[in-house]
């Protein structure tokens, strides 16, 4: 039995290596080419130490200190990614232990998304969040290959398959990423399906496709871009965090959510750039807003009005990365020193700097 498992893992590892060479879904109408990130070694030990000491408990729990110190699958996923990027095997194992025992308990093999230390049981929402699942699987896959740790690779594959099974919806004839297994599909709500474009973590998609090739990751990748393009061509220009795509001819903000380009969506440029998709048309739209007078902000997509300007270092790092990638602008000096304060912008900061360090060192 062990032998068979090993053999399978061997094949799997080979697949993952080939993923690095994968042309993937980039060979589409889009000019954007997907890149895979090396990731490992792109976060400095000092920055990671500062992050870890502030947001990672000894149990391996990643704490969202702006949200009542809860944890979520997204945070665990980011924690794993950053620990890998910092080359911290111990921290990776620590975060993984918590993720595995506390989050990966769903019957379908995905992670519950919300965990609150103040509740009993701690899991306060058993639904999953596909971005958290993707981040966890992606980090595990990366670490499994780099550190030759089969446990990680097996789990990455298990999650990727579960994602392919329940996260990709083809009910509309297109492959879209459902934000969760419950509540967002075409039959779950009158304006369903509802998607969150920031859940498309483009850099991870080729990896997932290698782990679970039986699912239509390529189509998923294309559809994410297509939706973004259509939003860009609409009056909205900016995607709301939660977007109803029920009416193919007219996407609109999903019912019950603020019609805002908000904390979720502001990750989209970073994800596009991390996947090397610098020529996506929409980036020009967001560049106009971010690099003009407006800066990074929460914006009402129907009125164009700004609700909140975001000035934390982590949000400014997003626009700095955009300026670097598109205009070769140098990163302002005040962004060069990491000043962690809140979990979310701190995470965005490290992911931004990791990309600049890996791909655009000239901006530093």
């Amino acid at each position: 039995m062990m032998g068979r498992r090993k053999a399978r893992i061997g094949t799997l590892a080979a697949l993952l290596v080939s993923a690095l060479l994968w042309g993937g879904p980039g060979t589409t109408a889009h000019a954007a080419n997907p890149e895979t990130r090396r990731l490992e070694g792109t976060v400095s030990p000092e920055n990671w130490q500062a992050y870890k000491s502030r947001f990672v408990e000894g149990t391996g729990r990643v704490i969202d200190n702006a949200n009542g110190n809860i944890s979520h699958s997204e945070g665990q996923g980011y924690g794993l990614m950053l620990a890998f990027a910092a080359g911290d095997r111990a921290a990776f194992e620590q975060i993984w232990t918590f993720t595995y025992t506390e989050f990966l308990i769903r019957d379908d093999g995905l992670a519950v998304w919300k965990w609150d230390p103040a509740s009993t049981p701690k899991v306060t929402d058993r639904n999953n969040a596909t971005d958290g699942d993707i981040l966890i699987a992606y980090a595990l896959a990366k670490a499994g290959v780099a550190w030759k740790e089969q446990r990680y690779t097996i789990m990455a594959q298990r999650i990727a398959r579960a994602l392919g099974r329940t996260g990709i919806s083809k009910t509309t004839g297109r492959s879209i990423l459902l934000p969760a297994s419950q509540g967002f599909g075409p039959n779950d709500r009158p304006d369903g399906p509802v998607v969150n474009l920031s859940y498309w973590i483009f850099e991870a998609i080729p990896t997932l496709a290698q782990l679970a090739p039986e699912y239509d990751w390529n189509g998923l990748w294309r559809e994410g871009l297509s939706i973004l393009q259509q939003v860009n061509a609409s009056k909205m220009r900016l995607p709301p965090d939660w977007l109803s795509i029920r009416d193919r001819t007219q996407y609109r903000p999903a019912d019950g959510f603020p019609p805002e380009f908000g904390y979720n969506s502001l990750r989209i440029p970073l994800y596009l750039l991390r996947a090397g998709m610098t020529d996506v048309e929409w980036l020009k739209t967001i560049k106009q807003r971010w690099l003009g007078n407006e800066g990074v902000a929460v914006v009402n997509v129907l009125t164009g009005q700004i609700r909140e300007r975001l000035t934390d270092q982590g949000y400014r790092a997003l626009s700095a990365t955009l300026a670097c990638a598109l205009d070769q602008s140098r990163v302002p000096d005040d962004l060069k020193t990491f000043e962690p304060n809140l979990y979310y912008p701190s995470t965005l900061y490290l992911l931004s700097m990791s990309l600049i360090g890996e791909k655009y060192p000239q901006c530093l």
Partner: protein
Amino acid sequence: MPLGRGITAIVIAGVAFSAIAQQFGGSSSDQRQAPAPLPSTPTPPSGSISPQSAPAPQNLPPPAQPPQAFPPQAQGQQTGQPPSNQAQAPGQSAPQSQPPSPPQPQVDESALRYFASQGDTRRLDAEIARLRALYPNWSPPTDLNQLSAPIVAGPPPDPDIDRFWSLFSEGRIAEARAAVAERTARDPQFRLPQDLATALDTAEARTRLVNASDNGQWRTVLDTATQTPSLLTCANIDSLWRVAEAFAKTNQAARTRDVYTYILTNCANPAERLATLQKALPLLPEQQIADLLRYERKTGTDQDDFSEIRDQLALRRVDRASSDSKQTASAEDLAAVETLAQESTDSGAALVLGWYYYHHNEPEKARQWFQTAFDRTPEQKAAEGLALTLRALNRFLEAENLAYEWRDRSPENLSAYKDIFVATLTQDPPLRLDPRVLSSAVPVITRDQFYNGAQALGWYSYNTGQFATARGWFDKALDWKPDDEPSAYGLALSLLRLNNRNAFNGVANEWRTRSQRIADLADGIYDRAASTTDLTPTGPLTSGGPLNPRTAVANPPPAQTQSAPVSSRGGYDPRQGYDPRQPQTDARPVDQRSSIPANGAMTGAPMTGAPMSSAPMSSAPMAGASMNGAPMDSRQAVTTTRQTTDTRLNYDNRQPASARATADYASPVEPAPPVTRQRSYEAVEEIQVERPRAVATVTTARPAPSAGGGGGGGTGGGGGRQSCASGNAYTLPAASALSLGWCLMELNRPMEAVTAFDQAIKRGNASTKQEAAYGKTLAYLRKDLTKEAAIAAAEAPQAPQRRTELQATILSQRALAAYRDGRYTEALLALGERARIVPEQNDLMIIRGYAYYKLGRYNDALKVFQAVQRTGYSEDAAAGLNVVQEAIRPSRQF
């Protein structure tokens, strides 16, 4: 046989089973595709659990088999997981009953052995203390001293391993993992000792299993168990229980039973064995529980006592039969449950017995158990059961009181209240009811459009002589359920009593084709005069039990050629079925007994004992108040019936008591809310007929008009329709117009009189003006147009005495109007204002008393009624006193 095998086989077989089911169900998971084999099942250091090699016995040993020995290697690390201390379930005590040698460590001693082997006495002592705290009956193995010896000769101790164990024993699993990963990164050749690897895996698996189980992720529970056989030992009994539950929740009851059987066969702790059966109770069918009971150990040092489980089974059987009158419980079971109920302090078993006896026709026993349950825990089910049982015992008033109090707790309580309310109101003879019973039902009935309740109020009003109110409620019931024949029948009967032919004809026309008895009623009015003398009061009226008027038509009782009980009783029983061959003779307006003079009937009939007696219509305000079905309703009825031939007056000496009961204890029923759907026979016209009659008496009370008026004595509307002096008010001279006004007043045509008086005011001299304004004021007062009356009174100056008189009348009308509308405080204000200018007469004092009563100012009400009483005997005051006293002290049961 190694302990783990059996349970692992169960779990694996169970998971395989679910995998098969899954595949047939059309979906599968990757775990299913790669079944069971994934567990990194290292070979334990000693003893072994090897699921792969285990023969997979599908059935566990028979009960007789003695407990198995436990494998010396143990997995039950109890501290590794923060939230999962359930493992130390009830009375976590080590098994003392095991053979002394070799020791049977259910407790995870791996860390202990490690520290001993390292000669680390400080940590060893700490670990012993920790395990002792967790397992009070545990004692450390005696062979620990020997462990350190061989190690000394071996390779030098690895300080990292030491640290790993240390973190592990402190439950810091993630940090232990991190430390191991760090070491592995540093030293690729490093291999984690197998016992530590297993210990870490097991601790993680336990946490995951508990989390998955807490969140209902049963497949994860089963997968985890399959992959971690080291978890499935008696030391981890909580995990075993959760696995059993997971099987049950995934419809694999047989597997569930297998796990419990495994525990009962292998695990020694008596408290845990009993707890196992308690866990099994809600999850397994009775027969399987019974099978498990056979594992009860009756010999040896650790004997089981499963009797409470047997009691629970008896309880379950009684419970099952408790809502189904066709199922009966055995005498043994009932006895067991009764003992259980007596000995326990909660109300569960008592409730079960209550329902059982309630549904098995032993209401008195049921009442006792419900009462017991209610006394222990006054909660909604107990209240519902108790109320329903009281009703079954014909203790309606108690039932209603209780049901009312609990009506808002649950839909069942509300439903019970409604049923009981209807039953209470439709008793024959009518019960003496607290006014609260009626008034508090109105909001519920209105809110829920509860037509049965409206109908019940209709019958109650009808049977207590409050016909106008009855009509209103029947109307309301029809409004909510237009095809409700019994309500239509009640409406028709009420309209007959009210002598409202037009409205009656409307009902009859609408229903004639749908209801034979209504048709007969219509025909009978004209065609069949009197033939009721030979009818005897037999039939449904005499039987008890709740009424269900709705069934009257659907299930007609056998034809009773001599029934028509109402005709001899004066009350209508809605239960009475329709029988076309025997029309409902009670409704005949002209009974041959109507030869009894109406007045005699009124004074002599028990009807007069109703709260509002048939005192002569000396007081206009009283009649006015009665219009709206306020407490004076029966007077209204009397007013009406006196002028018609009251079919209700055929009281018979044969039934005086019952008839008297009908009237004596009748509570005034509140009027129905406005009917929303207008029907052709709506109440509007009737009001027009009756109001002037009532107001006419105002003129009775007023001083005779001074001049030219043609007399002021009202005739109560009974006057003929002769014409006044000819002429058009608009062309007549002022004095003639004034005379015409008075004449029209005489004829009780007040609105025409207003026109005439207006002309007189317009053209007359000062004294004519004054007189005409006075007349106009009176005319408006007669129409209850108080506001207009007040304006008219101001149109010309009046002599002080007359001004006072008009003012007093206006105020009394204002008070009455306020009272009718339920604005009791305003009524009191108007009365107070009036009392400042004229002495308050008795009839208005009665109104004042009722207003106090309505406001809950019982003492004030009592004082007022007593004051009236002191002026000489007044039935109104007596009735008022009665009502207030009823409110203060709930009435006795009839």
